[in-house]
């Protein structure tokens, strides 16, 4: 392929040739000849030709390649296929030159734009001797959740003067998943004033913090003195403690707003980012307590994860959250109408939404409250993100803020626990605020 430089030189040569004929000037024609010879030599003998080849995943390495393939091959290996936000992935790219000619290669391993190269480099210029291979290693930091793909590997071979080059994309891709970052909520809830924070809770046959008696057992170091059953001690002569039945909620429904409007604000600081992180943290917390958690995301369609318990459920929820895309504008009322028949009465519902651009919000939440659901709304404020990013002028901010405050007050009057979640506020603080602690 001609570079801009060679195209310009070629055009200059043609122009000089024609001008030389017009002006009967042999110097101009000579310059044109020299330029053309220069270009031709670079084109014919610069190592710009065949880089065509294949790219394969590292898992498919089969050892011996057998016959030389007259080509360059690329293979990639990742340290992990699943990480959390702000986590790192180590990438090893193996480049092989199967031909008998050394090549100067420009290799760029395509990394998603949102990722940062922490160490090493994904863009390498190297001289790869004949029938040799080299390993390129680098680490990427993944600051945002999502499904990502590394690749293709772009390889460029050009002549020393940069006149001609040949580019080839080696289609070797490695997919990986970045889960939303989670905040540890345990402390907040344990320290809350009310041990059972959600209505609709049921006792499950399992020892743990709670109010109902479960069984007696022997005293172990570390047990609270308050839990010692003195009458049992008097009877048996051994220190015995009361075990209580753990208070737990039956179902938790997390509703995440992933409409297009939820991505208003900077890429790394917007309502959807905050909502997914909050949903992930809440799911981890509740599933850690062996509760049953379900997830609904709505944007251009309503996607739901059925209620379930355990680590597998956490993985399913995290995967759904990682893939939540800001699209569409389905109103909350549609979601409510769809899920109402399927959820247990009294189940706590946590809605994560910026509450913008949806005229049905008040009615939808009223429907929940009318059926005695415990509704908590955590609302990351898109206005704050926009204002912080200086995309919103002060007057506009004030007007929109007032409208938002009015909406929040209206929702609060319905009995919804609601918190205007500002960007710098921790999730635990926002939750505590919503519950009025």
């Amino acid at each position, binding site marked *: 392929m001609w570079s801009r430089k060679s195209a310009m030189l070629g055009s200059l040569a043609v122009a000089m*040739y024609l001008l030389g004929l017009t002006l009967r000037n042999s110097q101009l024609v000579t310059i044109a*000849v020299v330029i053309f010879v220069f270009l031709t030599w670079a084109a014919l003998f610069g190592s710009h*030709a065949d880089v065509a080849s294949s790219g394969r995943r590292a898992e498919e390495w089969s050892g011996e390649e057998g016959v030389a393939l007259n080509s360059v091959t690329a293979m990639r290996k990742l340290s992990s296929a699943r990480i959390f936000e702000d986590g790192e992935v180590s990438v090893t790219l193996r480049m092989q030159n199967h031909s008998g000619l050394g090549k100067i290669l420009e290799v760029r391993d395509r990394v998603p734009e949102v990722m940062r190269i922490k160490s090493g480099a994904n863009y390498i210029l190297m001289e790869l001797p*004949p029938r040799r291979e080299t390993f390129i290693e680098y680490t990427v930091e993944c600051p945002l959740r999502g499904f990502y793909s590394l690749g293709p590997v772009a390889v460029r071979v050009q002549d020393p003067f940069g006149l001609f080059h040949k580019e080839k994309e080696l289609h070797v891709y490695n997919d990986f998943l970045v889960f939303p970052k989670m905040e540890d909520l345990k402390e907040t809830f344990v320290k809350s004033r009310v041990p059972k924070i959600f209505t609709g809770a049921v006792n499950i046959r399992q020892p743990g913090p709670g109010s109902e008696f479960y069984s007696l057992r022997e005293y172990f170091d570390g047990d609270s003195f308050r839990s010692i059953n003195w009458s049992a001690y008097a009877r048996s002569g051994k220190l015995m403690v009361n075990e209580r039945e753990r208070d737990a909620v039956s179902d938790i429904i997390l509703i995440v707003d992933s409409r297009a409007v939820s991505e208003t604000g900077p890429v790394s600081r917007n309502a959807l980012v905050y909502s997914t992180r909050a949903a992930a943290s809440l799911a981890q917390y509740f599933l850690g307590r062996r509760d049953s958690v379900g997830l609904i995301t709505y944007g251009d369609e309503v996607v739901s994860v059925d209620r379930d318990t355990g680590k597998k459920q956490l993985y399913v929820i995290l995967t759904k959250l990682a893939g939540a895309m800001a699209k569409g504008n389905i109103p909350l009322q549609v979601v409510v109408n769809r899920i109402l028949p399927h959820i247990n009465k009294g189940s706590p519902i946590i809605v994560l939404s910026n509450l913008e651009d949806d005229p049905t919000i008040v009615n939808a939440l009223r429907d929940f409250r009318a059926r005695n659901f415990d509704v908590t709304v955590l609302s990351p404020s898109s206005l704050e993100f926009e204002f912080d990013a200086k995309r919103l002028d002060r007057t506009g901010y004030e007007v929109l803020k007032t409208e938002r405050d009015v909406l929040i007050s209206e929702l609060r009057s319905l009995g919804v626990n609601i918190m205007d979640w500002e960007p710098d506020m921790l999730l635990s603080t926002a939750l505590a605020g919503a519950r009025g602690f």
Partner: protein
Amino acid sequence: MATKSGDTSHLYDGKTVRSAAPSRKKLAAKGSAGTDIPKDAIPQVEVPSFIESLLGGPVVPKMKFLPAEKMVQNLQLGTYGILIALGILTYIVTPAVGTIWFTLFGSLTAANILQLFIVIGAVGCGFWGTMARDARFLLGSYILFILSVMRFASSKVSLSQDLFGFADNDFLLTILVVVYAVLLVMYFELSNGVLRFSMLDTSMRTREVYVMNVKKIISKYHRSLVINPLIAGTLAMMVLSANTILPAIVRLFSEQMAQRMEESVELISVYGVALGTLFVFLVVGGLFALDLPTHLQSWREKRD
């Protein structure tokens, strides 16, 4: 009482706003009530010009380089050397006769002075552009060099200064013109190399790109800087000597025909050169049309 400014923070005084964090009052407007959009809120949109869109980028890239390292400094020194030689040769092979300014002013002295100024300007711009690594000055220098050679020459190579009597010997005159042309192309390449390697050096030092075996890559470039001009010069020499080579070949078959060719006005004029050049162009075009570079490379790889 209404306040003149747009300060709305007083609205929050003495009120408990449960939905808000304590910072709300701080955020409440302290500024004026103007509705102007802040400057930094307007995204910068760069629309490429017509030429930029044709070329796929700016004609003169604006890039800031880190201070030059040895690799770049060597190239700069080479460019200075070439530039001096090119300046002198340009002045010698491009007399003012036949230039546009000679036609405009009608005075040889004025045209000479202007021609000299153009050559000095080209060298000066080249020096500054190479030293400052500023593509704009280099582009200016290229244009001035080309401008200096644009003259009506009546198919004859004439010299402004002929200290060594080149004009008496056609072969030496051809060599002089070829050396001039090669130096001009070398200057284009070297000055461009200064920018290219400055970009590479900056990218390496800012860790945008990692370069394995830098010395080998640079030595390959240096080798090409010697080989390519030699070959270009030799081939150009052959093309320009068409009026000598062609009769010599024809002489093998017909002495009379060769004699006629040697005396042919067309063959010794610029049209003879153009004929040779056209032949080169056709060969080159044919090679590219047949995708010979790729076939040649494949053949070389298979052979090894």
